[in-house]
């Protein structure tokens, strides 16, 4: 019974011209999208490798210099592109790619690709995620909207009923017939992506299990759509109405909900403007120790403390250069200020994420989008992780430089020059993205929401088709 | 009024209509009999200009349908087998709309008069068509023909699916139109109704007009015999 219905539905689909043409078009688009993304990925990574080595060379070859001058001269942390960005570009286009690491200041990642493009970039790109998230659900609607309504319209429903069919098996047959082509297309795309990634050089981060997990997420997303489309087809009387209702759901879930969510999230939990943020940071910085200002109240306080601690009565008698020590203390205060303000941003981001999860109740697109980006290391959380790693590196680098200054010179010796070889001793910045396990851990709620969608849509579908 | 001159329609190798010659004058009702696929509906489609003839010509009121399709439609009214009107509009509104787009502006009372003449009961005038039976819809169709002052009426299986009473009423309506000088061509399976209302009867098979009769000259049983003979049901007939 299930196989009979499956075979009949598949034959019907195969014999329809519109289905064949659409499937071919979708496959072609996928091919082009994968090709473009692979090229772009290679390009960006080549540039990344070049920039990283060049920057390190610039840092290493500064020559003799006061360590604090080197601290002001700073260095850069570049964000690499991860292999699964081939499947999902996520927010990469909108997040900066390089962070300037200098003394006294935590800088934001700069130079997002979108800022360097025309307004057209805001329409979106022809990338695999666009097709996976938008076009394939549309394909599901196209293949399945009349699955039940056509039986009504052709009058075959009464004939089938008179044959004493079990509506559950009938439904399963239709369900599998719709799932099968979608499964094939998706599996094909992921397989090709996996093979392409496996054969591209110069990264060790690609893991088949991440790709497989992504595949599972997308299959879940499609199953939800299949359930919804079949559900609508089984409760509507006419194919036309079924089509219009299914499309409205698509528009709502994939286009309207994310945008509305972004507006609500922003108005409820806004970010400060860049200038506001800078002003707030400056205000807090002024409250504490400024490493460059030996005359401030805080500097004097520190001075007495240190003199007391070491039991000496002049800064010259300290076993280290107090200028360097004060620099480091100032740096620590500033790092704290930044920590506080960036934590506020993160707090806003967490609140915004909650809004998105809340609206996932009306849109299975949202949890899928977030999961997919997270698995691809192209989500906002990974960007935060990268920025935090860069900041940790910056703090360490500042300590390294200030300690060098403090230990190798005496108080007031601003003319001190560190050896040209000193800079190489600073370890290079290295960043490892979160592992699959921790990503899944962090995105448990998104997985949960997707699971609820899956179970609920199956349940309602089974429940309603009982009475068809 | 209705003339076809060696009218022929081919679909590839298949000949749907083969050199048909017909002449229906004013005040005549010509009934075309024949099995499914005999070419009756093709004839009507050609007369309406919905399809183009492969060869030969069709004339309505001396106008060639192929050249003046739009002009010929001023003179003709057509009632398809399953007459569908706008379900969300009332009988009066449907009549107003269809005669309106055909270029006839009518007052409310005129519209009602035509519906009455077509035999629709007055209570139904302001009801939406969605609630109408096929017989009632056909009466609105006749009213459209009346309002248009059509000289030619083309009917495709008008009585199929009607109960005998409605079928009989429809026959009477056709007689009224006939007395006004309307030329009617009616494609039908219904031998009885053809004999009842027709002035002339033709039997078609495989796109050809096989036999023609004047209705008064032939009895119903003779007509049935002739029909079966034409259909090659000889053993049954004898």
């Amino acid at each position, binding site marked *: 019974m299930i196989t009979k219905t499956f075979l009949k539905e598949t034959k019907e689909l195969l014999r329809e011209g*519109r289905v064949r043409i*659409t499937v071919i078009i979708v496959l072609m688009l996928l091919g082009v999208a994968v090709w473009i993304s692979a090229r772009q990925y290679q390009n960006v990574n080549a*540039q990344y490798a*070049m*920039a990283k080595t*060049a*920057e390190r060379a610039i840092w290493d070859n500064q020559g003799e210099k006061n360590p604090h001058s080197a601290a002001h001269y700073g260095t*850069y942390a570049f964000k690499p592109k991860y292999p699964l960005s081939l499947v999902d570009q996520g*927010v990469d286009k*909108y997040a900066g*790619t390089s962070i300037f690491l200098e003394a006294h200041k935590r800088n934001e990642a700069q*130079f*997002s690709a*979108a*800022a360097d*493009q*025309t*307004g*057209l970039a805001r*329409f*979106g790109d*022809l990338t695999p995620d666009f097709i996976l998230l938008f076009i394939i659900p*549309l394909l599901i609607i*196209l293949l399945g909207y009349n699955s039940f309504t056509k039986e009504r319209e052709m009058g075959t429903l009464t004939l089938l009923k008179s044959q004493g069919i079990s509506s559950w098996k009938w439904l399963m047959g239709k369900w599998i017939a719709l799932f099968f082509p979608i499964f094939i297309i998706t599996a094909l795309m992921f397989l090709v992506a996996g093979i392409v990634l496996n054969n591209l050089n110069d990264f060790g981060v690609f893991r088949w299990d991440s790709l497989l997990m992504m595949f599972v997420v997308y299959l879940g997303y499609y199953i939800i759509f299949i359930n919804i489309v079949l559900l609508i087809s089984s409760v509507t009387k006419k*194919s*036309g109405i079924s*089509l219009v209702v299914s499309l409205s759901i698509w528009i709502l879930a994939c*286009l309207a909900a*994310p*945008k*509305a969510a972004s507006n609500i*999230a*922003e*108005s409820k939990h*806004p970010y400060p*403007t*860049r*200038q*506001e943020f800078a002003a707030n940071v400056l205000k807090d910085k002024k409250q504490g120790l*400024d490493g460059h200002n030996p005359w401030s109240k805080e500097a004097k306080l520190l001075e007495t403390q240190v003199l007391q601690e070491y039991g000496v009565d002049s800064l010259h008698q300290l076993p280290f250069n107090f200028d360097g020590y004060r620099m480091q203390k100032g740096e620590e205060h500033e790092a704290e200020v930044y920590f506080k303000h960036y934590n506020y*941003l993160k707090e*806003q981001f967490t609140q915004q994420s909650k809004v998105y999860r809340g609206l996932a109740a009306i849109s299975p697109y949202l949890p899928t989008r977030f999961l997919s980006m997270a698995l691809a290391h192209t*989500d906002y959380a990974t960007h935060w992780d990268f920025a935090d790693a860069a900041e940790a590196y910056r703090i360490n680098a500042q300590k390294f430089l200030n300690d060098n200054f403090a230990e190798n010179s005496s108080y007031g010796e601003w003319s001190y020059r560190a050896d040209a070889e000193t800079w190489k001793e600073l370890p290079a910045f290295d960043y490892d993205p979160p592992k699959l396990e921790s990503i899944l851990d962090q995105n448990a709620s998104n997985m949960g929401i997707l699971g609820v969608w899956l179970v609920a849509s199956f349940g309602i579908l089974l429940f309603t088709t009982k009475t068809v | 009024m209705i003339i076809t001159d060696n009218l022929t329609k081919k679909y590839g190798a298949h000949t749907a209509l083969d050199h048909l010659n017909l002449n229906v004058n004013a005040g005549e009702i010509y009934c075309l009999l024949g099995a499914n696929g005999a070419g009756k509906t093709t004839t009507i489609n050609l007369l*309406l*200009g*919905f*399809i183009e003839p492969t060869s030969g010509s069709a004339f309505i009121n001396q106008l060639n349908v192929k050249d003046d399709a739009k002009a010929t*439609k001023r003179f003709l009214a*057509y009632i*398809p087998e399953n*007459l*569908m009107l*706008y*379900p*969300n509009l009332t009988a009066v*509104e449907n009549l107003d*709309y269809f005669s309106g*787009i*055909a*270029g006839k502006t009518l007052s409310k009372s005129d519209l009602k008069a035509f519906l009455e003449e077509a035999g629709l009961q007055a209570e139904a005038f302001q009801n939406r068509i969605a609630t109408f039976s096929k017989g009632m819809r056909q009466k609105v169709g006749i009213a459209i023909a009346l309002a248009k002052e059509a000289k030619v009426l083309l009917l495709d299986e008008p009585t199929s699916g009607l109960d005998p009473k409605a079928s009989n009423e429809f026959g009477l309506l056709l007689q009224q139109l006939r007395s006004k000088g309307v030329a009617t061509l009616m494609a039908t399976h219904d031998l009885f109704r053809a004999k009842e209302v027709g002035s002339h009867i033709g039997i078609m098979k495989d796109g050809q007009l096989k036999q023609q009769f004047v209705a008064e000259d032939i009895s119903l049983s003779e007509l049935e015999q002739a029909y079966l003979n034409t259909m090659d049901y000889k053993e049954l007939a004898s």
Partner: protein
Amino acid sequence: MLSYNFKYELKLLLRSRWIQLLSVVLLLLFGFSAFNGMEKVEKRKNDIIAAKLEVEENDKLMLQLLDSVERGLAVSVPRWTIPSNPMAVGNYHPRVAAMEPQPMAFIATGQADLFTHYVKPTVSGDDFALNFTEMTSPVQLLFGSFDLAFVIIYLLPLLIIAFSYNVLSAEKESGSLRLLAAQPIGIQNWVLQKLGLRFFWLAILVITVLTVVLVVLGINPFSEVAIYSGLLGLVLAYMLFWFAVAFLVNLWVGSSAKNAVAMLGLWVVFVLLVPSVLNQLGNTLYPMPSRSLMINEMRSMKAEVTEKQDEILDNFLRDHPEYAINDTTQQRGFYHRYMASQKLVKEEMAPLISSYEEQLRNQQNWIGKFKWLSPAIIAQESLNKMAGTATEDYEGFRKQVVGFAGKWREHLMPFLYNNQDFSQADYDALPRFTYQNETELQFGGLGILLALSLVLFATGIFGYKKLSGAGILDQA
């Protein structure tokens, strides 16, 4: 025929509840999106006001400090922030260079969520390192904003598709088409009238609902009659294009299901695919030079320049004798060397920086050449321009700010090199920034949309005759 179609089309639309449904849907969509737009504009205005207020207060403090210094009193701020030093004024008391929203900014977010609306350029900063991007969650940038432009460009066509995909096919499927075709009328003419009337009623609804929504939200749309009528004209032209598509699809495609699929396919092509493919091609043909490599270049240049600071300063002063003329002390400090070096770096980097601008311009031109392929691009561009949130607007702002940063620097340079103190009397002469909206209202987009629609309608009217009746009447 037109008067009868007119009379009965409205009746049919009212009785099938289309008009009521559309009114509610439009009211919700326009209401929500316009509200969002307004909120953003409000925030933008407030941010700028707050920033200006902060500067005003800072200026008061600065003048107080100057007053104390001039009267020879001791001040309790770090030495290098005392505003009698011109570099302190230039770095710690920058002006706000703000881009105030245009009156119709709420209709399209455009690039407004990506870029900042005010910056405070300082004397010692790098112009090309001025960060013009706004601090936004990239998730929001990815999802975009539910603004009026989104409703008009993405959703309105879908409403039109739902409203018009089966004008002819429904008649065919219900059987009334044969009766219609038996009337002395041309079918394409009839379809044209039906669609024309639906366009007419939808247009009335759109104009009414939009105007009502704006008035309720407290915007007087008639205060900017030219832009508002431009907006309405553009929306109507965009709608007309989709009705023209509906006209062709109705005449040629056939059954309702096929029509719906065909129109939807066209929607995907025009609204989603063509823009992204054009963008991708633009990026491939005119790739942006790598920003990471730009950083490398800038770094090595700075390193080089630092080594030769003294030489650079000497050269600089030789080229600018006017700077040292009134200076009797001839003192040369950090800033003297630094500013001279900065100037050199800026000049050396200029070709690289301009290569970004040039590529952006190339991409823009490329899109300009092919934008007629997608009415969605034309509509989006035009709406962004009306709102003053287009890429060009932000480019203009950037240029004006860089210009202003130069002015700011040049204003303070003579103080520096003449070793002249900045005084209270000099305060009023400090340069100020006012944003000039450079894009004029253009109706080119409107013209292209109308031309596209006309071509489609003409194809329907003249092309259909040859195929007279093909398909649609074969089988009832």
